[in-house]
């Protein structure tokens, strides 16, 4: 079973969010990267861009597939992982660490309350992820 850290929040689209005050660090889950296979390309918005909860903010591509990335929360991008354009494989090797994607300053920090808990997300992927 894929690794689902307890302290994070999750989306049904297999993104994670680590909430600290009004900021959320986000990425995709271990389950998501396993399903994708080898990640070879990540396209992220620039710092200063606005993202909207449950809307696409970027793209991740594996050898075989192109997948949209969905923002767990709304707000402004304050950091984007500058290592991913050159080393997209970090999403596979360390999805919750060096494979992080964005830090978002949340326009409404309460957004994070509606995300899934680790226990709920574990249930989702135990059912096949859909």
């Amino acid at each position, binding site marked *: 079973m894929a690794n689902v850290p307890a302290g994070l929040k999750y989306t049904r689209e297999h993104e994670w969010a680590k909430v600290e005050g009004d900021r959320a660090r986000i990425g995709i889950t271990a389950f998501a990267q396993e399903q994708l*296979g*080898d990640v*070879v*390309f990540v*396209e992220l918005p620039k710092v200063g861009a606005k993202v909207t909860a449950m809307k696409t903010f970027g*793209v991740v*591509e*594996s*050898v*075989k597939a*192109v997948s949209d990335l969905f923002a767990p929360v709304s707000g402004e991008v304050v950091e984007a992982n500058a290592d991913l*354009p*050159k080393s*997209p494989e970090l999403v596979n090797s360390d999805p919750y660490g060096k494979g992080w994607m964005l830090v978002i300053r949340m326009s409404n920090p309460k957004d994070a309350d509606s995300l899934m808990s680790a226990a709920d997300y574990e249930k989702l992927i135990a059912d096949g992820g859909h």
Partner: protein
Amino acid sequence: MTDATPATALKRTPLRDVHVKAGAKMVPFGGWDMPVQYTGIIDEHRAVRRAVGLFDISHMGEFEVRGADALAAVQRLCTNDAATLAAGQVQYSILCYPEGGIVDDLTIYRLADDHFMLVVNASNIDKDWAWVTSHSVGRATWKNVSDATALLAVQGPRAEGLVGRLADRDVTGIAYYHFARGAVAGVPAIISRTGYTGEDGFELYIDAGSAERLWDALIEAGRPDGLQPIGLGARDTLRLEMKYALYGNDIDQTTNPLEAGLGWVVKPAKGDFLGRDAIEALRARGVGRKLVGFEMVERAVPRHGYRLLAGGAPIGVVTSGSFGPSVERCIGIGYAATEHSAVGRELSVEIRGAANAARVVKTPFQPSHTKKA
């Protein structure tokens, strides 16, 4: 390369359960339930380039034709000149429609003077069978042996040593695009020095009932060589780095052999064959587009169906593309208008609405390591 056929309707090779047990990720491909990867596409790709990989390609189709007019029938159906084949030789060839479009690409084995085996793409077996049997000529008897035949490919720099250890005959003397009969791990096989990876290696045609025995023996004996089972994902990236065409992606009924860069297997001098007149008319006129290889200037993945642009205007279409694990760049092949097809030409690929810089390069992208004749 996946399709939407429901899992219940999918055909299975004799090794399907072995792949599932080995933890392979299974996908529908051309109507078959096939392993796309075991450990990961990039890892498997590199294992083939550096050591040796084992592929189950039993989904491929095999037709035999024999009789006094077997050669005449093959000559009528295929573009290449099968009369140049001695028994024990293999030839790459094409089945064409009279209009010049491609029915399929295939390899032809001359088993004996009056006996050939045609090896066709899995997704085309039914179409090809109907085509060859309805367009055959003379006294030639056709037999579809696809279900009775399993096919394992052993590819990579250590393939010769591994197959040689298990075979009851010398395999080092089997030249590229030649075959010999022998037993491998006790299983009677056609041992063919062919492949779809650009590496040295063999394709082993065996009875379907012996597939599991030979697979297990190769896995076991290949352990010290670093042998890995290889899925269709890496099979695709390996062939892409060689610019080997894939039917359904790069060639199909709407493309002709000349624009696909396959004019070298069209031999009008041999006499009449299906598609000859149309292809010769095209050759005289010149083709309007050519299948080129290109690399992306910045990392961005070209995919089948994306548009090729020059100066902002569409000039062609991507037919295959991926990150190339050995060349470590994003590469693709596609049809470009002839005036934009020269090596060095700067193009772009339209990806999600944006033009991404690319340039036409020499192919293969990766040097070939197939055995030299």
